């Protein structure tokens, strides 16, 4: 479980996060949604510690991450898998070496054991026969899958994904979403997915948090989101004229 309490973050005089509190549950896909610039990436980066918040607490199970020193944070980070918006695969390494990377860094397994684990992760995300390719030779969807394989290589307790299906066609996006959901349930991870894609929300959103102008504006499930009276959320969910007509009818 990951919990954030009363997070504040401002740049100069503008609040990017304004008293955000939320609890992200284990074994579920917790989605943070909101318009571009609403503060959801800042929230996710604050949760992983890439951005320091001005005030507030971040808890990973029973550990107060926001108040830990760097070495203690690094210990928790070894239990995190993070999927970045652009996949963030290491350009100079092949697909196999990218997945082997965390295993080389943090385990003392034999080379064969590490290779077995890397191949298991790649098979799990349905990437086979591409071990020797470099990231530049992969499609967007493949990059995301390899990044997921790398993220789960160390059996993380927490999986954090920043817009996992951005830049992908809707069909591939849903494949990636479903993969994240399957892995979350299979390995009982606490998963947080940052998204502005309504397909993702409706497909995998066990719990949804709507961020609007830096504030948590709404919280609920994917079924509740379609029935809410929240104006800002309705404007976000039913953004097109056609969707607005469907909502009215």
């Amino acid at each position: 479980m990951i919990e954030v309490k009363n997070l504040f973050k401002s740049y100069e005089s503008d609040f990017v996060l304004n008293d955000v509190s939320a609890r992200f549950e284990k074994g579920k896909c917790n989605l943070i949604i909101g318009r571009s610039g609403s503060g959801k990436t800042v929230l996710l980066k604050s949760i992983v510690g890439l951005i320091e918040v001005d005030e507030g607490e971040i808890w990973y199970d029973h550990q107060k991450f926001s108040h830990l020193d760097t070495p203690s944070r690094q210990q928790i980070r070894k239990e995190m898998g993070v999927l970045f918006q652009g996949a963030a695969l290491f350009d100079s390494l092949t697909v196999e070496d990218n997945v082997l990377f965390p295993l080389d860094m943090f385990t003392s397994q034999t080379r064969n054991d590490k290779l077995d684990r890397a191949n298991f992760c790649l098979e799990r995300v349905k990437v086979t026969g591409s071990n020797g390719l470099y990231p530049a030779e992969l499609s967007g969807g493949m990059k995301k899958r390899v990044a997921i394989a790398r993220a789960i290589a160390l059996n993380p307790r927490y999986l954090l994904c920043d817009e996992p299906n951005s830049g992908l066609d809707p069909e591939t996006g849903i494949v990636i979403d479903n993969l994240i959901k399957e892995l979350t349930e299979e390995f009982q991870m606490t998963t947080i997915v940052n998204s502005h894609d309504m397909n993702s929300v409706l497909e995998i959103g066990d719990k949804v948090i709507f961020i609007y102008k830096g504030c948590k504006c709404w919280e609920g499930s994917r079924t509740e989101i379609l029935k809410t009276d929240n104006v800002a959320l309705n404007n976000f969910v039913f953004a097109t004229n056609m969707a607005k007509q469907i909502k009215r009818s």
Partner: protein
Amino acid sequence: MKLLSHIGSYFLLMGRAFSQPEKHSILYRQTMREIEKVGINSFPIVVVISLFVGAVITIQTNFNIENPLLPKYLVGVTVRDSLLLEFSSTMVALILAGKVGSSIASELGMMRITEQIDALEVMGINSASYLILPRIIAAVLFFPILCLLSIMVGLFGGYLACTLGGVMPPSDYVYGIQYAFYPYYISYALTKTVFYAIIITSVSSYFGYNVKGGAVEVGRSSTRAVVQSSILILLANLILTRTILT
């Protein structure tokens, strides 16, 4: 204020870079990779430039020592000392600042803007140590070899100017490059090269590591890395020459 802020950030980054590496085996592997990238790949440019500069210094020195009272072998002495004292350390360092420095800054800059450095950090890896330390070690180990190579190739370039160009009798040149030789000059050149290696790799890494923005900023940081490294090399040259060449 901005300069002080940069100096402070630079030393903080170096503090992180020189902290305990995650795994010594990984550091060794990375250092070997960097030796290839930073060192071995610089062989051709060092050889070509040193060869031509050695030949040109020989021709120019011979042209300037036309006095019949001055022995011809002084050309060899001048070429050798020019290479040892200045060219093969400082000039080669300036060339490497352009080649290696821009490469380091742009590579780290691209890693920064494509979130690869963030990916290292969230894995619990000290990205500064992982990315910067092997580059500094590789340069410190390999730049002195490039300096020695430059000295040898430069002297050979001078010899070729004598034999193929007929500038002066090769025997006088060979006598000259052996005449009144101070081995300390080699130590002096190598000491300077080690300092230059640290300046080039650390300054370039600093500019690349701290890129913010997009591709334009990566280009700017690469240019800044080369300019600042070059200025610091010239400043270090002055200080080191004043302090250790006594």
